[in-house]
């Protein structure tokens, strides 16, 4: 199952924790942008670390929200 992270731009405050944890997946400018993906388990732990809780994770094929 391929999953991708999605940034809620209205909530993202560009703390930068996601980029620090996964520089291949997130890039921080004035908000975070998604530049790659990673296994679900890793994406969920990054989403949990986001101080603004601005990251959700969806199933790329079905669009189903896997986190939160």
């Amino acid at each position, binding site marked *: 199952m391929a999953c991708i992270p999605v940034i*809620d731009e*209205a*909530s993202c*405050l*560009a703390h930068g924790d996601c980029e620090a944890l996964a520089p291949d997946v997130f890039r921080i400018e*004035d908000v975070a942008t998604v530049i790659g993906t990673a296994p679900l388990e890793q994406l969920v732990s990054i989403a949990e670390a986001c*101080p603004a809780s601005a990251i*959700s994770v969806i199933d790329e094929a079905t669009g189903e929200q896997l986190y*939160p």
Partner: protein
Amino acid sequence: MSCPDADLLIAGGGLAAQRCCETLRRLGFDGRIVVLCEEPSTPYDRPPLSKSVLIDEREPEGLSFRPASWYEEHDVELLLGVAAAELDLAERTIVLSERASAAGPGGRRDAGRMRFKELLIATGSRPRRLQGIPVGGAVHELRTHEDALLLRAALRERDGRLAILGAGLIGMEVAAAARALGREVTLIEAAETPLARVLPPALGSWIAYLHRLHGVDVRLATAVERVSLQEGSARLELSDASVLDAAGVLVAVGTSPATEWLASAGLGPGAIYTDAGGRTELPGVYAAGDAACFPDPFLKLPLPSQHWEAAVRQGVAVARSIVGLPPAPPAPSMFWSDQHGHRIQFVGHATPDCEIELDGDPATGESFAAWIARAGRPQGALLVDRPQSLPAARARIAGAEEPSVSSGEKSSDNNNHSKRGALWPAYR
């Protein structure tokens, strides 16, 4: 009148200044931007100063928002070590001063003047001090990277108890860091519960409980009457008649806006009032961050906020005003803290007459959410190790403010949180 030296002059080189610059350049603003950074380093992130810098010895370079090359690439001029000393409104000029080691520690000398077209007041705040407790030697405060290095060295190199005056976020985060480093800690707070200005007593009591669980000696409703400093240590006389010997003292009793330099222009003292776009009463003069007081979009009154998130949103709001855009849609205010391995997030507000409903049991050490409402309307939430609940909490609070949401819809939303515990008993 001669040309201005800067199209936008930013007094202060912290988070609000940084986000204002980033947003302006992204929005295509091509004027000359000059930033006065009082500290000797490029703009950096302060939250790690009370957390990872103390525990993991993270180094200064790691805290910079951007590498030095970013400022060149984006044509943002940083004047490091240069502060705003005075605002001359008639001339639209700032009198500058710079650090001068020849003038002794903390000494400053005149560094000329700079004319501006528009000005952003972003000089932040500085720690409040207590009468009779001079900072220096065994007595610390924590605001700058320099302060953090001194505190870190003291935590690692000296044994003995750390006495922390003030159970706000800084005091509590340092308490957690000091415990992680194996130090004995006493946390002294004049109010009856920690974070009393923002958290209702029942929830503030939980934070006190968490610290006690991790071995912090928490003294609430206790004031420090006298501090006598001996060679490398301190003796504190407390209002409960007890005496405490400590190897180090951290004064963490809040901050006050660093706006004294605006007195001659008729602004301040205290935070500078603005509209939702960061405009002060003076044309072409904006304020953001700890030095500013924005109107709260939900409480609909001026509300100063010293939180990280407010500085971000306000820096962005000023950038949007400068290029003629309206402020971004309002979001409920939020702060977070990491203490004793727990992620603590607070969103919205809590008024003294609020109702609290718990989802989860705080006594178990597991995650929980405390939903805060007033007259049945969601107002705020405290989330402990529940980051996944923050989007829902935001939506509930923002939704409660919108008259278009019917009460029926709101009550069905409330039913989603069916598992509720009893109100957390107030700990003393």
